């Protein structure tokens, strides 16, 4: 293990696969974003920063960027509020609590594709369970075309995403909650801490690591959302739910604008990188303080 040769030998399989199928394509992206490659011709023309210039004035890119931010913000906030609340309620012993933890996690076992279809059916204006149920309880006037109406489509997709991943956030929060020593709560009780105070001053600071992980997972996951949107709305109606990843897929593989598509991918990469760095700064800072 002292010899560099042996060390290299151990790392070799990982280095080869990682370099060939991740690093080279990533560097390749920077190159392709400066070309007008169409994906078919063997011929690739260098066009400088043309793609980036086009991109700045392409309203569809701006809309996709806005949609991606709205999707990520809604998912991150709502999913974390909901799963933290449920985790707090589940943080006790008993078979029912263990059973619910398992139930809540089932959607995370399904593919986004399967979930996309199930919820497309749920949101269907005629057959869909939601409208039928509203009708049955006399609220038929509230029935909507949940996916077909641009006023609601984004929220419908957001809710589906939350439905799938809340169980996962819950078990991560629970792991954090269960690591809190019990005597801390008892000390709080003696001091006469009320429920809300107890949460603010004991629970919340101590689950900071779980909080960081959950926020990061939901932000990064939702900034590159593809499957769910592609299956449910293909980005529509119009561009109402088009995320950056969906736009990039369409440009590259439906319209053969590979060069332009990679330029969008690069923008997406820097957006994710910037947001994660900022996130980590803020959240890790909070952890140390606590």
């Amino acid at each position: 293990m002292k010899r560099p040769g042996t060390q290299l030998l151990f790392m070799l399989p990982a280095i080869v696969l990682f370099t060939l199928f991740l690093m080279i394509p990533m560097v390749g992206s920077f190159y392709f974003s400066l070309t007008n490659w169409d994906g078919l011709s063997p011929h690739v023309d260098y066009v400088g920063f043309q793609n980036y210039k086009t991109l700045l004035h392409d309203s569809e890119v701006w809309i996709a960027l806005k949609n991606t931010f709205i999707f990520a913000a809604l998912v991150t906030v709502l999913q974390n509020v909901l799963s933290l609340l449920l985790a707090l309620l589940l943080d006790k012993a008993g078979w029912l609590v263990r059973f619910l933890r398992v139930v809540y996690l089932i959607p995370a076992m399904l593919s986004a594709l399967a979930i996309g279809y199930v919820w497309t059916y749920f949101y269907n204006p005629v057959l869909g369970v939601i409208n039928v149920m509203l009708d049955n309880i006399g609220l038929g006037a509230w029935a909507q075309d949940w996916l077909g109406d641009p006023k609601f489509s984004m929220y419908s997709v957001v809710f589906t995403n939350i439905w799938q991943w809340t169980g996962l956030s819950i078990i991560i929060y629970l792991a954090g909650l269960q690591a809190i020593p019990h005597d801390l709560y008892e000390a709080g009780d003696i001091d006469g801490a009320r429920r809300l105070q107890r949460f603010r001053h004991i629970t919340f600071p101590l689950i900071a690591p779980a909080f960081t992980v959950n926020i990061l997972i939901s932000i990064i996951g939702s900034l590159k959302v593809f499957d769910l949107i592609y299956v449910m709305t293909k980005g529509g109606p119009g561009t109402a739910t088009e995320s950056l990843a969906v736009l990039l897929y369409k440009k590259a593989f439906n319209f053969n604008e590979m060069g332009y598509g990679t330029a969008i991918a690069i923008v997406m990469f820097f957006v994710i990188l910037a947001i994660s760095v900022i996130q980590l700064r803020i959240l890790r800072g909070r952890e140390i303080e606590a």
Partner: protein
Amino acid sequence: MKATVGSRVFSNLVLAVWALIVLLPLYVLVMVSVKSPSELLDTSLKLPKAWMWSHFSDAWEKAHMGSAFGSSLLITATSLLGVVLASSLAAYPIARAKSKLTGFFFLYFISGIMIPFPLTMIPLYKLLKMFHLINTYPGVIFIYIAMTVPFSVFLYTGFLKGVPRELEESALIDGCGPFRSFLIIIFPLMKPVTASIIITNSLTIWNDFLVPLLFLQARERRTIPNAIFSFTGQYNSDWAMIFSAIVLGSLPLIVTFLLLQKQFIKGIVGGAVKG
């Protein structure tokens, strides 16, 4: 602090409502898949009068689920084997031999965690074409391994750093080479991390839709999500058929999860919290 009756009622109510929201779509998924076409028009949540179990065999055949199961199983298993071997081997010198070389490669691998797949997909398309790997199993398997190596190396390295060296050192004195001591001593020790990596990544790979959509279109090699996707294209709005195919495709993971819930939950938490 004693919970008041009011707060206990509220707590149970919230838990029950979310359980209902989680279960209702799953219930509808199963019901629609066994209802006869005439009963489908009755949109109530009642159990069907006649259970059309034949939908499952129909969907199995028409969606080519048999070959899709084979493909998904082969791809998931081989990719997992690949990532476990490649990243545990790589983590060993990184955790044990501090040098410029291992330090550099640690950072090199870790930098991959931040790279989203869409950034690599277009050049990957060109690369796979060049190597004639489009529409082949090795193509997608290599991509999955490359995608999962960074975080796995990170997990293995973190774990190994917390393992005392005495065991291997005595093995070295006994004349064990580095490969043998890795195989006999280190690898078995890392079982919790290996379990974590297998569980989290089997979910991702088994359920992935985008990579096979791009690189594995040939009918006889389609994975389960992609078989369902193209089947849906043909049987547009034949919900009973589509949902039967979805039930069949989702069952293996759900059943495995229900049987091994403890290990699943531990594995997922282990994979996430270390990050």
